[in-house]
């Protein structure tokens, strides 16, 4: 390649030299396969490994082998690696095998005889709770989480309101569909469990693997590879413990990679939900809201669900709501555990709230956009849960989206409809993050523990922050990766946090570095770095020294001056007096997003085509001008999938009916509209230089904007996602 690239990782990815989890290979390795439960719920009578073990070169392990493989360990009693008495979802691993070839491993897995007595399957959450759960409904084992918050005399508000609108919404199960399936390569030697894996969270995976195996965290080493897409699906541990156990059992390195069908069946999925929404309006103002959320969390463990208390906030805000009662239940069903999916569950909640408020305004005889605009949070407001709203570009983004929509509407052909939707997000922090800077005579390295998952947050985001904070040109900055035994800790690449949290850690390390340089130069004034004839030079008013001259012998050998930095972010606080049950979450900052969609709806089939799209994002500060708008484009198109076609279908017996890319349809190149991206600066957030996270926000209002555009075009009020042609046709009474 001849020209310079806007992405430092372009070359290895375009030339095919980037090594992903799927590509891992070492001499002598075995291939592994998991043995799936044939039913979604059942009593495990026996798992007979002998037919697999009879095959030449096959190693097979099940629950009975754990005591030998993990002496003295009980693992995680709540999450046994292999069930001993009951299976709780279809395809739950009940045993694992390894063999010299991938084909033989699959054959061996099929040879294992699994005898299960089927038990009644709970697949549909409305089957569990046809009415709202009472306090004793089905017993606590059905409920993974219960949250409730309240403000004001809600019953009185609803009794006396001029208009009350009650609706029920439903959203479908969606899968991340990272193009690279989960894959890892494990080695177990001596007391060390070492695994190379395609993960968003090397340290999170280490913690999870240690907990599942019941071994000390220090004995587990996780090395990340390039990640072929994550979108929330590649956090924590999934395959690694099985590969490690097989490596221990066989004494060989073991590769475990999912096929794409297995990726659908075992990969993490966001599950269906039901929303009951009630809004009371008097004098053109929202005076009260009731929300009832039932969220299917599959076999998530009680107490480990975050989604319910987190997402229910998106059914109130970003709108001023003086009186409310929100209540949510995370319901356990016989499906794999709930998994996050880029802005977990926010696109679904925002679809519900925006569609509902649009409908409420129409019912009350009000202009829907003006109605929503009149209630938007602005900086200085207090959220319904009592957190003060910080710098917030949402009102600005909304006005720009509204102006764009008005322009489109003026130009639009008669068969088009236009929708505007808003949402908000908060830059994640996770537990925190740390980095090391290493300043050599010619370069600055940022040494850290995350691998690039695609957004650019690691290779471009962190590098850009380091360039900005040290004053060096970005082509002098490299980002280096180390495994969990050597790298400074970081929580993971998720939650729109990576550039923000590690960027703040880079800023912190930069302060330490410059303090150190002042000491070495014997000066007290501001120092800056320059590049002169290929060498980095430290300059204070009258003092000027090449970095080369400032290194001691150890630093010359080790590559440069090292400085560490950390960022452990804080969220704001909510008013806990409003919380009656469970956990609700405060935000670190307030990130606004407003989108406009134009659609064309086929009046005969109900099929929806998005014809143009505009996205307005409150980003605080632009860190990397190349990758920031690319995040928005990619997020919008992923959101179009959630809006229009993506739906994992579960049968009554807990079977995923469409585990393939033909039957679970993600957007293709032919369905993508032009997308105008506008990044709004000036409302600072929690990241470096006031930046706000941008990985997830582009997903958030897409389904809502498309639904409102469909209603604008046709009058169809669709209360379920996705807006498949069948659902739109039903709403139009074509079916």
């Amino acid at each position, binding site marked *: 390649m001849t020209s310079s690239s806007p992405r430092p*990782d372009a070359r290895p990815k*375009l*030339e095919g*030299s980037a090594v992903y989890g799927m590509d891992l290979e070492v001499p002598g390795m075995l291939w592994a396969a998991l043995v799936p439960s044939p039913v979604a719920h059942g009593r495990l009578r026996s798992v007979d490994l002998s037919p697999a073990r009879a095959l030449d070169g096959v190693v097979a392990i099940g629950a009975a082998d754990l005591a030998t493989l993990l002496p003295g360990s009980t693992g995680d009693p709540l999450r046994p690696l292999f069930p001993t008495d009951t299976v709780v979802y279809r395809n739950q691993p009940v045993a694992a095998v390894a063999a010299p070839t991938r084909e033989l491993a699959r054959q061996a897995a099929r040879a294992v005889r699994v005898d299960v007595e089927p038990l009644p399957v709970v697949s549909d959450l409305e089957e569990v709770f046809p009415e709202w759960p009472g306090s004793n409904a089905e017993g606590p084992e059905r409920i993974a989480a219960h949250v409730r918050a309240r403000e004001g005399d809600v019953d009185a508000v609803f009794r006396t309101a001029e208009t009350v609108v009650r609706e029920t919404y439903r959203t479908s199960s969606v899968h991340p569909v990272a193009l690279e399936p989960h894959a890892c390569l494990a080695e177990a030697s001596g007391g060390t469990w070492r695994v190379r894996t395609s993960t968003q969270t090397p340290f999170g995976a280490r913690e999870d693997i240690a907990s599942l195996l019941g071994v000390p965290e220090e004995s587990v080493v996780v090395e990340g590879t390039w990640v072929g*897409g994550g979108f929330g699906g590649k956090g924590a541990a999934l395959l690694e413990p099985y590969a490690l156990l097989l490596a221990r059992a066989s004494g060989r390195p073991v590769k475990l990679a999912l096929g*794409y069908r297995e990726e659908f069946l075992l990969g993490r999925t966001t599950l269906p939900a039901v929303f009951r929404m009630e809004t009371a309006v008097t004098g053109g103002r929202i005076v009260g809201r009731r929300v009832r959320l039932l969220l299917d969390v599959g076999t998530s463990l009680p107490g480990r669900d975050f989604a319910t208390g987190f997402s229910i906030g998106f059914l109130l805000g970003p709108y001023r709501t003086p009186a409310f009662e929100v209540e949510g239940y995370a319901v356990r069903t016989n499906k794999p555990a709930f998994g996050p999916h880029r802005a977990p569950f926010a696109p679904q909640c925002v679809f519900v709230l925006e569609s509902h408020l649009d409908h409420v305004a129409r019912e009350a005889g009000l202009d829907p956009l003006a109605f929503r605009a009149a209630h938007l949070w602005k900086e200085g407001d207090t959220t319904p849960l009592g957190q003060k709203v910080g710098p917030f570009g949402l009102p600005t983004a909304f006005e720009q989206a509204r102006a764009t929509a008005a322009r489109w509407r003026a130009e639009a052909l008669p068969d088009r409809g236009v929708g505007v939707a808003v949402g908000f997000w908060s830059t994640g922090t996770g537990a925190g993050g740390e980095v090391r800077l290493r300043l050599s005579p010619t370069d600055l390295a940022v040494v850290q523990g995350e691998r690039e998952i695609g957004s650019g947050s690691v290779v471009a985001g962190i590098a850009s922050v380091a360039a900005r904070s040290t004053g060096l040109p970005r082509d002098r900055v490299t980002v280096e990766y180390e495994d969990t035994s050597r790298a400074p800790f970081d929580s993971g690449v998720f939650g729109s946090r990576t550039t923000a949290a590690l960027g703040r850690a880079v800023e912190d390390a930069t302060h330490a570095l410059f303090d150190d340089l002042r000491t070495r130069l014997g000066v007290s004034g501001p120092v800056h770095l320059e590049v002169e004839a290929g060498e980095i030079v430290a300059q204070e008013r009258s003092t000027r020294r090449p970095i080369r001259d400032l290194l001691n012998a150890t630093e010359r050998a080790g590559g440069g001056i090292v400085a560490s930095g950390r960022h452990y972010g804080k969220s704001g606080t909510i008013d806990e007096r409003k919380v009656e049950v469970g956990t609700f979450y405060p935000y670190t900052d307030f990130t606004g997003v407003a989108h406009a969609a134009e659609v064309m709806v086929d009046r005969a089939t109900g099929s929806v085509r998005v014809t143009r799209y505009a996205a307005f994002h409150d980003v605080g500060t632009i860190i990397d001008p190349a990758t920031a708008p*690319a995040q928005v484009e990619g997020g919008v198109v992923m959101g179009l999938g959630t809006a229009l076609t993506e739906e994992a279908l579960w049968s009554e017996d807990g079977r995923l009916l469409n585990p*393939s890319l033909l039957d679970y349809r993600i957007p293709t190149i*032919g369905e993508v509209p032009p*997308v105008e991206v506008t990044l709004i600066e000036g409302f600072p957030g929690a990241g470096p230089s006031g930046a706000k996270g941008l990985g997830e926000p582009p997903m958030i209002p897409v389904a809502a904007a498309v639904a409102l555009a469909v209603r604008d075009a046709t009058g169809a009020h669709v209360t379920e996602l996705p807006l498949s042609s069948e659902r739109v046709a039903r709403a139009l009474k074509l079916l």
Partner: protein
Amino acid sequence: MTARSLALTVNGRVRSLEDVPGSERLLDTIRWRLGLKGTKEGCRSGQCGACTVLVDGTSTLSCLTLSHEVEGSSLTTIEGMADDPVGRVVQDAFARAGALQCGYCTPGFVVALVGLLRERGQSARAEELLADLAGNLCRCTGYLSIARAVALLRAEGP
């Protein structure tokens, strides 16, 4: 079909492979026998395009091709694009347009596009090329930067 030897030209080099089972897919021959991991395994069932390679210059899904079907053919993978003038121009356009994120679909897109340019000639319009890339899935970019890479190619050649 039992295992037998297989001769192929791979990125310009003649390769002779022993004991290749009749059921082996070209994707696995490329990745695990030839060690060329730039060709990606996605769905392994012809739905995503990540494993696209050129067989005698024609864009081919290596996951749906048995290796013995292409006996004697000339195979070009992403690793061979460095020696291909059209390949280099396509890679350069992708780099300049920022037309990649996680990169997992990227080799398939590059190879498919090189195949299309070969097949349809230099006069193919950008819209035709994009329509013919519909068999390649990308989950990260939303395809817009890929479309810009194609537009760059149309504006500047090849």
